[in-house]
């Protein structure tokens, strides 16, 4: 079904581009009459000619060969793969989308809604336990999602459905979609309100992280030796967040002093991103290097760098995200992250290749180490902290297998067999 319409898509794209048939034919080195045959789907097209035509029309070749149906098929395939306990006839996807494009579109749309909803759950599950208002809102959203999922699955079943039932389910689906949109908006409005100053759910550390994110995790004024308190007072309002920022930025300034930007840039050019080598070159400890690498102006490292710092209770003291790297704030993180494993062997550097599980698995190279904080009295036990630098691996398919698979938190982790599991996942089947 898909291949036979390539010519029609070429014609459509050519008209959008405002090119005459003869002009396009000349650009790709064929006769206008041959292009005419192609555009009327009377000649098959592929290989170099297809690439040349796509280039002349400024589109990807796949847009011409697959068109919008490819997106629909991909969405249906994803819906089938995500289905639990229900096997779909994947071989008949083309036929289904071809015979019932409207229903296929509805199913794909509903699946996208469910996916979006799951992401919302993932983001909010950390707060869910602590906020009854949020829990009630999520109940509303999940109940609507349950109704949509159940109704859409009935409509997607093969075979004829009685017209009366079909119309009723169609109406229900529409109602639920509207309701989901409304409840989602209400939820967002509720969360937006929570961003207001002084809100009980805003953590000082989160406020500091938001401030640093706005500044791109790079503060030239600290690199050049400006006083930390001036920076803090110019960017943060609440006393608690200022207190936290004082600590974070004082550490930043100290790290920048012993690893100045110019020398660091030269060192990275010489020996690449090798934390141990950098530690030796600057005569500093590994935690300093890991922290410093996460607070650099854009473009100095070839890839973005995430960071997590925790204390020995597992509480996250600082978190800098990179795409795909998430960690709950309230002590429900996956204990398999190297930042936590490092606490079991202080001062031993760890390097691990880690996959964060989720709808779109992301792979990272992680460096971690735990180290004792200075003690102020003889005989007092040191408090340990652990730091982890997180570097995304872009070419994950070409590289070796990950050593560790981690989740965000047990409640929304899809990994069924896990020694670290604390509670059942809401993504799994009921017991």
């Amino acid at each position, binding site marked *: 079904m898909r291949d036979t319409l390539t010519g029609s898509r070429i014609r459509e794209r050519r008209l959008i581009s405002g090119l005459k048939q003869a002009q396009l034919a000349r650009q790709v080195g064929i006769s206008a009459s041959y292009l005419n045959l192609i555009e009327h789907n009377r000649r098959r097209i592929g290989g170099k000619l297809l690439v040349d035509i796509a280039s002349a029309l400024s589109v990807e070749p796949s847009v011409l060969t697959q068109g919008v149906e490819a997106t629909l098929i991909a969405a249906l395939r994803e819906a089938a793969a995500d*289905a*639990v*306990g*229900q096997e779909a006839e994947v071989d008949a996807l083309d036929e289904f989308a071809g015979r019932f494009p409207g229903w296929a579109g509805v199913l794909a749309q509903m699946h996208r809604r*469910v996916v979006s*909803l799951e992401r919302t759950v993932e983001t909010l599950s950390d707060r869910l*336990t602590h906020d009854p208002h949020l*829990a009630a809102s*999520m*109940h509303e959203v*999940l*109940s*609507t*999602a*349950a*109704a*949509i*999922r*159940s*109704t859409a*699955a*009935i409509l997607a079943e093969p075979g004829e459905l009685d017209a009366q*039932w079909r119309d*009723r*389910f169609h109406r*229900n689906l529409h*109602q*639920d979609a509207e309701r989901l949109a409304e409840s989602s908006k209400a939820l967002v409005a509720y969360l937006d309100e929570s961003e207001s100053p002084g809100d009980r759910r805003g953590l000082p550390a989160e406020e500091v992280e938001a401030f640093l994110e706005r500044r791109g995790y790079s503060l030239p004024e600290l690199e050049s030796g400006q006083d930390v308190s001036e920076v803090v007072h110019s960017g943060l309002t609440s006393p608690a967040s200022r207190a936290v920022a004082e600590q974070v930025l004082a550490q930043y300034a100290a790290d920048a002093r012993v690893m100045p930007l110019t020398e660091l840039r030269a060192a990275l050019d010489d020996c690449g991103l090798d934390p141990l080598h950098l530690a030796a070159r600057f005569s500093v400890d590994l935690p300093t290097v890991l922290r410093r690498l996460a607070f650099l102006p854009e473009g100095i490292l070839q890839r973005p760098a995430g960071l997590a710092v925790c204390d020995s209770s597992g509480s996250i003291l600082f978190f800098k995200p990179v795409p795909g790297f998430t960690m709950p704030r309230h002590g429900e993180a996956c204990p398999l992250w190297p930042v936590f494993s490092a606490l079991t062997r202080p001062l031993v550097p760890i390097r691990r290749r880690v996959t964060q599980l989720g709808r779109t698995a992301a792979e990272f190279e992680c460096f971690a180490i735990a180290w004792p904080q200075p003690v102020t009295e003889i005989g007092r036990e040191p408090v340990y902290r652990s730091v982890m630098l997180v570097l995304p691996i872009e070419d994950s398919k070409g590289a070796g297998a990950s050593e560790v698979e981690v989740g965000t938190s047990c*409640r929304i982790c899809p990994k069924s067999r896990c020694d670290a599991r*604390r*509670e*059942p*996942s*809401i993504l799994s*089947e*009921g*017991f």
Partner: protein
Amino acid sequence: MSRKVLLIEDEPNITEAIRFLLTREGWNVETHAEGGNAVEAILAARPDLVILDVMLPGKSGMDVLRELREHEEMQALPVLMLTARGQSRDREMAEKAGVSRFMTKPFSNTEVLTAVRDLHAQASRT
């Protein structure tokens, strides 16, 4: 005699979908949307199986289940509980209250049908 299920759920479109699925499987489906008098409704309907939502107006599904199990003749009645909260403590609470099966939203139709078939088969054997 056809098997009877009582579906206690305040979300009408979930009720509609489950009613369709179970009717097609040969069940006689009765519905109820209120927690406050749910126990009375179960006692009156005498179903072979109950599907019970947790968050109901009037009284929570957990309380309904606890009260239901206080009736000696209702102790073996299969109860499938539906909830948006899937935390371990919610499951534990449901188990203590006497749930037969616990299922989190959003569930799939296959999950519901399988659970209903399993629970009914188990109850029929005893």
